[in-house]
């Protein structure tokens, strides 16, 4: 909000307003007419108001003001809602057009001579299998050449889960009535004991978790890896939780399990990568050799790192769901 200027009365805008409303015509002064000065008018008003019942007058004017300001507000919202669609369309269109002009000048799609396909990807493809032992070149890239990046990613996931825990955790010994109400609501209206879902979950949960373990263990010889496999294991846990409720899940998955599993996997990851950086990063003389490409027990440190990442991701996915659903793991 801008301040009202002190010399507002003498400003050009005020003069224009006065001219429009006919309060003070500047031509009159020039012509020498006898007109009332605005200050005298003001004084007159003050004396007039001193005599009347001030509180009653104020109440009436407040009522009047509230009535018309409400109308103005409502109308303003309506105008805004109409204006919003127009503005959104224009913004969307202009941003898309500006970016499309840029895209039209980019190198063409699917061309092997593009500048993206430079010597870096050539090196990864041609030397990757020999140096890391991973058949899946992407897995070899993200867990060997750029493993530091993946370490940061898994820490980001863990820290996000901890942040959500800080924001949404509901203590049972809390005194806050709103929190207590939220705690009761989720437990009360949770649908319980659905026969179809329970029978389906009995068959599906082991299969889903087994598939997740398969994806994690085959991270270096097929697509997938720690992130995808961990997400599948987490979804299996969420299905179990949905079918059988929190009491049965708390028998094997509590906050303690969460912290122990994720912290120990993150520590294992950090320690093993520290070891490999300490011994000289790329020319890694690991105790675990690359092995024969294509076998499950191959590719050096990639398999254990995949398992660690998968454990962190599974815990985090389950943790997110449980925190949002009931406010606690």
């Amino acid at each position, binding site marked *: 909000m801008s301040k009202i200027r002190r010399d507002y009365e003498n400003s050009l805008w005020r003069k224009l307003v006065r001219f429009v409303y006919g309060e003070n015509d500047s031509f009159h002064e020039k012509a020498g007419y006898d007109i009332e000065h605005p200050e005298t008018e003001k004084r007159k008003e003050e004396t007039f108001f001193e005599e009347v019942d001030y509180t009653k007058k104020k109440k009436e004017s407040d009522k009047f003001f509230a009535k018309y300001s409400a109308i103005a507000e409502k109308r303003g919202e309506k105008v805004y809602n109409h204006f919003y669609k127009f503005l959104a369309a224009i913004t969307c269109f202009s*941003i898309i057009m500006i970016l*499309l002009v840029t895209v*039209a000048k980019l190198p063409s*799609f699917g061309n092997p001579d593009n500048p993206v*396909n430079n010597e870096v990807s050539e090196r990864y493809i041609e030397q990757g299998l020999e140096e890391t032992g991973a058949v899946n*070149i992407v897995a070899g890239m993200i867990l060997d050449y750029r493993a530091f990046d993946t370490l940061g990613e898994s820490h980001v996931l863990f820290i996000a*889960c901890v942040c*959500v825990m800080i*924001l949404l955790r509901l203590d049972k010994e809390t005194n806050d009535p709103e929190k207590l109400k939220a705690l009761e609501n989720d437990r009360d209206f949770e649908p319980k004991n659905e026969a179809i879902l329970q029978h389906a979950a009995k068959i599906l949960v082991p299969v889903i978790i087994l598939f997740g373990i398969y994806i994690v263990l085959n991270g270096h010889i097929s697509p997938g890896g720690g992130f995808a496999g961990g997400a599948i294991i987490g979804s299996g846990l969420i299905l179990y939780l949905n079918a059988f409720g929190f009491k049965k899940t708390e028998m094997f998955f509590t906050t303690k399990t969460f912290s122990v599993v994720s912290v120990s996997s993150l520590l294992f990851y950090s320690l093993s990568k520290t070891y490999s950086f300490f011994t000289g990063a790329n020319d890694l003389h690991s105790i675990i050799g690359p092995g024969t490409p294509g076998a499950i027990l191959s590719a050096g440190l990639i398999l254990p790192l995949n398992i660690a990442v998968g454990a962190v991701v599974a815990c985090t996915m389950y943790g997110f769901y449980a925190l949002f659903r009931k406010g606690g793991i």
Partner: protein
Amino acid sequence: MLEFLSGLNDKPFEAVAIILFGIGFTTLFLHPNLIKKIMGLNIMDTAVYLFLAAKGFIYGRKAPIVVDGVTSMEAYINPIPSGLVLTGIVVSVSVTAVMLALTVRLYRRYHTLDIDEILKIIRKEGN
């Protein structure tokens, strides 16, 4: 104009990615509902993944998984954008979770998801 259209015809996937990006950007900046703002951010993320994946593709080549020990540049697509997309997905999941948690806290405090209403209530409380 003709040059522009032929340039777009050359790269349809990038053009679609840009259109998705524009839709997400508009929703993020102009929609008053907090949940829809988060949806807009997620659409923007998806557009960026599509753009990166399209940049990595090369006609007639296969996914970067070594088959029969062939390790020549001419057999596989570019693996670097795939790794970048993986990083992006993980970060986007964490950011979305934290944003949703903050939205839940805001809803518990003000009982509305409209950002304008929340600002009005805050202004009233401040005075």
